[in-house]
């Protein structure tokens, strides 16, 4: 059961899928599993829906679209357990869930994750072959219809930042696009990566500031203050293009342009000792501190309807 699940360790794909099923079985009044599509290799794209009533607006979280960022998926597992544990106990989360649904996609790139577990621990992209090239996969964080094809993405299939042949060409991306559009009432969207300790908001594809930049910046400051209060982990924050680099076709640029005001992307621990091989004993501290920031964003979303 999910009480005995080892949150302090990394797990393979099947174990995480089983964890999701266990969580649903144990908390069927609160959690359900939605399959929003299939990966290129035919794996289900599972989303956990935490809901206490019908017709609620939604808040979206996804982890691990870049498969080698294992602390991200592991944190997603911890978040799922945290939600069911805190509902009814933590007044802030309870209030959120009494008014909003939370959607959590823990394994956003399952083919890539499986590949990191079995063939190449440093794999980042999807696993769809590219016609005419021996190089496989697309960077799913350059595949969105937001400045698609612009600077900060590559047209070369062999590049780690290959954008793909067209926007939303990757089933892992298209599934989220279809879900967000069909839902029609997602109010916040946080896409979680690692590492480098940053909280970023749009835009990445243009230097034009987002129209809500002042509010997004202030909320980022608040979220990072909360995060740092636990272990004093140092984070930076700002727009993608000014804080890290120009990146076209990114997830949250698309969600923001769809009208989801509270669109953020996270880069979790660490700043440069282990990179993508963060030791498992840092999973829970990473998840704990990140959760504080996620709560700040979700509370702000609830308190500032638009």
């Amino acid at each position, binding site marked *: 059961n999910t009480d*005995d699940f*080892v949150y*302090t*360790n*990394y*797990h*393979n794909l099947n174990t995480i899928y089983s964890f999701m099923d266990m969580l649903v079985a144990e908390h069927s009044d609160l959690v359900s599993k939605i399959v929003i599509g299939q990966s290129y290799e035919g794996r289900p794209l599972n989303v956990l829906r935490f809901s206490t009533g019908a017709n609620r607006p939604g808040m979206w979280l996804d982890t691990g679209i870049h498969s080698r960022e294992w602390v991200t998926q592991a944190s997603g597992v911890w978040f799922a357990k945290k939600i069911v544990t805190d509902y009814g106990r933590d007044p802030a989360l309870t209030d959120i869930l009494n008014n909003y649904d939370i959607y959590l996609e823990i394994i956003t790139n399952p083919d890539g994750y499986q590949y990191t577990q*079995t*063939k*190449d*621990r*440093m794999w980042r992209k999807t696993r769809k072959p590219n016609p005419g090239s021996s190089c496989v996969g697309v960077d799913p964080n350059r595949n969105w219809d937001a400045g698609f094809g612009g600077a900060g993405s590559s047209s070369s299939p*062999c590049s*780690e930042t290959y954008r793909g042949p067209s926007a939303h060409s990757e089933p892992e991306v298209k599934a989220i696009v279809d879900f967000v559009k069909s839902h029609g009432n997602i109010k916040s969207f946080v896409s979680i990566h690692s590492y*480098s300790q940053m909280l970023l908001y749009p835009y990445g594809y243009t230097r034009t500031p987002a129209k809500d930049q002042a509010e997004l910046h202030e909320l980022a400051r608040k979220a990072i203050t909360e995060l740092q209060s636990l272990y004093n982990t140092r984070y930076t924050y700002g727009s993608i293009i000014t804080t*890290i*680099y120009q990146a076209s076709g990114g997830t949250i640029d698309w969600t923001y342009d769809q009208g989801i005001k509270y669109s953020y992307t996270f880069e979790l621990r660490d*700043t*440069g*000792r*282990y*990179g*993508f*091989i963060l*030791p*498992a004993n840092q999973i829970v501290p990473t998840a704990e501190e990140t959760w504080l920031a996620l709560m700040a964003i979700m509370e702000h979303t609830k308190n500032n309807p638009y």
Partner: protein
Amino acid sequence: KETFEGHQVLRITANNEAQITLLKELSEQGHLGLDFWMEPIRESLPIDVRVPFNSLQAVRAFLAYNHIEYLVMIEDVQNLLDEEQRQMLKSHVIPR
């Protein structure tokens, strides 16, 4: 299965725009098999790159020749991955 014996991850600190340009040129040398975990963008951001064993000598020589500072962030990537694997296996054999 892809292994990473002898691969190192270097953390590079560029001190000026000229060094950034040099590092961008380095990143385009496909034959070196470099995997930039954090790309050369601007001086204020560190650059992390995984360097295969066969390219270590060339990359280190390039950095030294151009007076670009770096430190070894990960001495041997495979050692870390082996430890990670041991930890994962350990969690599977513990009776719950």
